[in-house]
């Protein structure tokens, strides 16, 4: 991995961890320079959370080594804890207490004096736009406010390194954007950030470098642009408003691209990689869809997104192994070939 020289803020070498027969981490390497953001991208069960738990001293690795701010996470765990902040996948706050009380208690547990704990709480409530809600019980906060309070709690100790494990999972789009702004401002202050996410656009937005993890292994690393370059071409994408016609649409454009088309039954988005054929492919797509009689919206040629990268790298979509519904969105399921036979016949009728 080619990174800026000098001692990195986070260094991971050959990290392994198994739970019984499940090999959560099968030897991953990471290196995060000071003041930069590493996006760790992967589907559920890829090993992201396990890696974060080891780096934050919550879990002992089976093998390999992890160093945070120069401290080994096993041998110097106490020193690591003085350097880090952690915000996990759910809001780890005491809902019965007010936002202010939550932060004051965390401040006390960081061994700040009472006056300092109080003033730190006020600073953070202000920074996170929670001043008005400071004295309300956190259970009455919206989901986005709870996550902001949780993030604020992780910053009470002014950590040099911050670990955010899926900081926006379960948030509505507006709260996500708000969270992104906050995260950007933290990084601007010089904090090193390791961020895990299943959302490719999130890694694209926030991270300097991205590693893609799948089944406990790093399968790709680089900047968002470098990763996109790996797809090696453009993508034709459009939306099918009538979801029952998705199969027909996929069939209609199957021949214009390099690989199989990908269609998402829920969002109605169909895409296909077209290599360097760009506008020719776009014209073919219009013709094919027209001939099949499928109505489409937003037909466009675009640069590949990280979604496409993930598909190209792993052969499956990033969120395919998503947990039960209710999360933000499901993504593209492979439907490619299956639309051919019967559905094509229906098109003709």
């Amino acid at each position: 991995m080619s990174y800026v020289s000098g001692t990195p803020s986070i260094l991971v070498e050959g990290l392994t961890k198994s739970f019984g027969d499940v090999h959560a981490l099968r030897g991953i390497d990471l290196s995060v320079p000071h003041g930069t953001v590493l996006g760790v991208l992967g589907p559920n069960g890829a090993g992201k959370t396990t890696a974060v738990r080891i780096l934050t001293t919550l879990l002992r690795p089976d093998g390999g080594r992890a160093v945070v701010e120069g401290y080994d996470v096993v041998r110097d765990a106490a020193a690591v804890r003085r350097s880090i902040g952690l915000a996990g996948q759910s809001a780890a706050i005491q809902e019965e207490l007010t936002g202010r009380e939550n932060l004051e208690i965390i401040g006390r547990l960081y061994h700040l004096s009472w006056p300092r704990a109080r003033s730190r709480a006020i600073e953070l409530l202000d920074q996170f736009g929670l001043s008005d809600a400071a004295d309300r019980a956190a259970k009455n906060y919206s989901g986005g406010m709870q996550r902001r309070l949780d993030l604020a709690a992780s910053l009470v100790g002014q950590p040099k390194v911050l670990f955010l494990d899926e900081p926006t999972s379960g948030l509505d789009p507006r709260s996500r954007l708000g969270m992104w702004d906050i995260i950007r401002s933290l990084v601007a202050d010089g904090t090193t950030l390791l961020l895990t996410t299943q959302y490719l656009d999130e890694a694209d937005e926030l991270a300097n470098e991205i590693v893609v993890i799948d089944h406990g292994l790093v399968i790709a690393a680089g900047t968002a642009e470098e990763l996109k370059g790996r797809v090696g071409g453009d993508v034709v994408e459009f939306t099918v408003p009538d979801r029952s016609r998705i199969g027909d649409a996929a069939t209609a454009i199957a021949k214009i691209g390099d690989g199989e088309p990908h269609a998402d039954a829920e969002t109605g988005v169909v895409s296909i990689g077209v290599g360097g054929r760009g506008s020719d492919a776009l014209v073919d797509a219009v013709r094919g869809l027209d001939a099949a009689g499928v109505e489409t919206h937003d037909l466009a040629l675009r640069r590949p997104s990280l979604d496409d990268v993930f598909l190209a790298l792993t052969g499956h979509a990033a969120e395919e192994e998503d947990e039960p519904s209710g999360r933000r969105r499901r993504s593209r399921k492979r439907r490619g070939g299956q639309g051919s036979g019967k559905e094509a016949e229906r098109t003709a009728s």
Partner: protein
Amino acid sequence: MTAVAETLGAPDAHGEPSLRVRFGWAVTDTLTITRRNLLVWMRVPAYLMFTVIQPVMFVLLFRYVFGGAIPVHSPGGYVDFLMPGIIGQSAAFATFGTAIALAQELKKGVIDRLRSMPMARSAVLAGRLVADTGRMLVTILILIAVGYAVGFRFANGWLAAVAMVVLATVFGLAICCISAYTGLAIGDEESVQAFGLIWLFPLTFLSSAFVPIPTMPGWLQAFANNQPVTYVINTMRALALGGPVAADLWKSVAWLAGIFIVFLPLAVRAYRRAG
């Protein structure tokens, strides 16, 4: 980056702070967690209800509904027999809250957050035990007041009465360790609650708490006569009303010591491995 570290208060020459400093932190961290737990307890009406109203209902129920049907040989009648039993039972039941709270904190990631912080690792469990013991003591004192209102009297002097309260509290603390372990080991609120019913109900009801053991069938007597709750409640009853204390007391002490020795390390281990 250099300006950021100053407020942490941790002398950071790569080395650890001194043992004395760390011991001081263990104490203040435990107090902080205790304070937090008591604050939460006061904010949730349901917790207050379980702490206060449920035990009072048990007193009234057994004193006025079942009591008349239960013959006892205590000089003061059933209410005197009942009160030490119900105090012991309430102390044990109060630990439902311990298990549920720890399971919730585990699930919500609160324990992860605390374990990733440079605070004393013992404080979360210690603060939980201290706060819950305090809560338990409040319940016991309320029960004694209600007992007095419905005819219960200590008949063995105030010193023995205090000793009874102390024993009930230590007993509650021992059960608290078991509950803390179950809460952390199971880690799911509903399962913890269901599991609590499975062991706490038999343990407290199949004892001398509410009825004289000789009224039970023989096979049940064999269990009831030889289990810790019976020893503890017999001791409490002897302390409250008079009578021989020694034999039941040392058996109680042995049992309680055994529970602490087994379950405190288990709870600590479950906390360390939490999640």
